[in-house]
């Protein structure tokens, strides 16, 4: 039972991380119908930025967070303006390829700036391990859980109650209508990218504290895409639910099924993809996706 609970709780923390990354993706998709494959690269960028500010420049934590977010705001804005805006009206594949190419550029830049080496900056975040009986929750996971929850709540509130949130939701549904109503779509797109970048780097700073920073960090973005598919492309609630679900399932699968595998596991890495392809076979629009009727 302890084993089970330990796995479940670790999965929960991991799932919240997935959800955080998935939300960045969903926001961009909702607002501009663009699929941002590079979301995982924002996470990687966040990790390296966290490393730079915390471990190299030794800034205090709060200042580092502000600095990281500032860089993300600029990066998100610049990427939207230079790379995505010229593609408005182009087919879906063009936008997808653009974000993939962006992923390549971001990764390349990270390699040029920071080298391909593994970096760590742990022991910067407060160490508050929570022990529930025999189960222990690592502080980074705990902080991750708290931060993700705060970020998600803030975003939800923003979408629900602010004018800009209304504009973003409206643009997500019908760009022509909203532009006709005087809402500047470009502003909404830029904002979506900025929010996604910020959410991504915040996730990266958290993750970097847990497992160190490396180029491979962006791989978590691919898993988050499985979360996105599962939750439905345009549902934030779906992303959270699917993130938590996948995080927990992945951990349980690794814990209980790995030893049964012919060559010892690695199931955690592939599990989200297996779940995703199964779900796609049964529900082609994910579990919570809006089904859009296609007009002939």
């Amino acid at each position: 039972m302890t084993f089970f609970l330990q796995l479940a709780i670790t999965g929960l923390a991991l799932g919240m991380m997935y959800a955080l990354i998935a939300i960045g993706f969903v926001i961009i998709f909702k607002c501009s119908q663009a699929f941002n494959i590079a979301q995982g690269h924002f996470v990687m960028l966040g990790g390296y930025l966290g490393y730079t500010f915390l471990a190299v420049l030794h800034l205090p934590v709060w200042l580092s967070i502000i600095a990281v977010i500032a860089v993300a705001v600029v990066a998100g804005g610049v990427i939207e303006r230079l790379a995505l805006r010229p593609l408005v009206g182009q087919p879906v594949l063009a936008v997808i390829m653009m974000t993939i190419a962006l992923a390549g550029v971001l990764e390349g830049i990270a390699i040029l700036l920071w080298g391909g080496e593994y970096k760590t900056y742990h022991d910067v975040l407060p160490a508050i391990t929570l022990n529930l009986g025999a189960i222990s929750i690592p502080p980074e996971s705990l902080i991750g859980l708290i931060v993700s929850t705060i970020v998600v709540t803030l975003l939800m509130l923003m979408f629900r109650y602010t004018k800009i949130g209304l504009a973003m939701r409206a643009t997500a549904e019908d760009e022509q209508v909203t532009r006709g109503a005087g809402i500047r779509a470009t502003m909404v797109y830029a904002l979506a990218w900025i929010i996604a970048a910020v959410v991504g780097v915040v996730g990266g700073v958290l993750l970097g504290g847990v497992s160190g920073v490396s180029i491979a960090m962006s791989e978590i973005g691919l898993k988050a895409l499985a979360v996105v598919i599962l939750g439905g492309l345009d549902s934030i609630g779906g992303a959270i639910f699917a993130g938590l679900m996948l995080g927990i399932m992945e951990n349980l699968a690794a814990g209980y099924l790995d030893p049964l595998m012919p060559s010892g596991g690695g199931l955690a890495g592939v599990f989200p993809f297996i779940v995703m392809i199964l779900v796609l076979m049964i529900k082609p629009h994910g579990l919570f996706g809006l089904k859009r009727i296609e007009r002939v």
Partner: protein
Amino acid sequence: MRRVKSLWAILFMIALALVVAVSGCGGGDATTTTAPAPTDTTAGSAPTDTAAAAEPVTLYIGGTFALTGPYAEDCAAVLAGYQDYVKWVNDNKILAPWYSDKTIPKNVTFDVLWGDDALAPDKTLTIYDDLKSKGLLTERVSGSPEGMALKDKLMGDKIGATSQSSSPAYLNPPGNIFTNAPIYTDQMAAIAEWFLKGWTDTSRKPRVAYLTADSTLGRNLDIPEMQAYLEKLGYEFVGAQYVPMVPTAPPTTQLAWLKENKVDLALGLMINPGSQPTIKEAVRLGMGPDQAYKITFGFGYPAHLQVFAPAMGEQGNGVVVAGDFAAWESNAEGVAFANEMQAKYRPNDKVTHVMYLCGIVEAMTQVEALRLASTQVDPAKLTSADVLEKGFQQIKDLSTGGILVTNLTYGPGDPEGVDEVRLQQVQGGKIVELGSYPLRGIVPK
């Protein structure tokens, strides 16, 4: 309108391609005029016919380095070691401070040729061809998959290589990838033997499991002979857990599994990017030699302890690493040599990674092979086969000034250079030597 296009287009593209390719290699010293046989390489700007022995000759050492990816920090340090060592040899014309008799001919200078394979076997093969055509007579291998990919080529082309990895696969069939660290299975055996000495509970057998990197490196020990050996020693073998080489999440699940299965000793091949988060998480879960749940972690990759120990501090206490390189604190002659070189060639950016020492050892091995071969063949006319047969395979009792635990001896069919395993442990953030253990030859040759 989808009909065949004018083939001028293709011609044009090919021409463009050539321009790019040629301009890319242009400026380099590779000449592409002679037939591409491995034996033609009179490197550098050597004239067609070398009449006088005084004609200057440049010999290259080096090979492929995985400067991107999980091994990046290791390989970068190795490369630094290569570069400094070559400078030193060119300045002093002897093999090492302790070898005044092993002199380098005055007309020979060394240079390093390298390429970043980013830990991809296909890139390795491409770089290998490229460096070979530039005149590299030796090769270096950055990781097990790369070694596996190169193995057949190296044998076919008769090129000797040094390696940072010590895959059991290099031994069988006996190839020409010369290692300077004990084969991983022997490293594991040493840790297992050491742990057994401290096992006092007579009521039960100690339980052992693998906690190892999910990569070729990590899976090197997953062979039946290894398990049989552990059971022969008196262990109860529980199973294996794999951690991604660079985890993107803490390996809590794998650690919880060890706890659940009451494992006493976890053996694995892990490099620094994998072991740091793993041990950190273990401590957090109350697992370790000094923690509530008693378990010892033994890792078998010599490279990372010098980075691991200072980065982890007290958290890393009790971690055992079967390595081969002397610690920076050691007073060995070789370490002093390394420090001297660093002071001379990189006064401001000292390399603290232990793989710098590995770089020196590998570079020294390659230089020694070239030196030995050139005592028999004119250095300007050396072929890779000469370097392999008259060089690498003739290296006997080569001292590394104590960087390695024993001297290096190679021969045909004997690519394993050392014959002891050095065990080190992290204690209070420092590296403490636990002693040396003999090789057990677990992999059938």
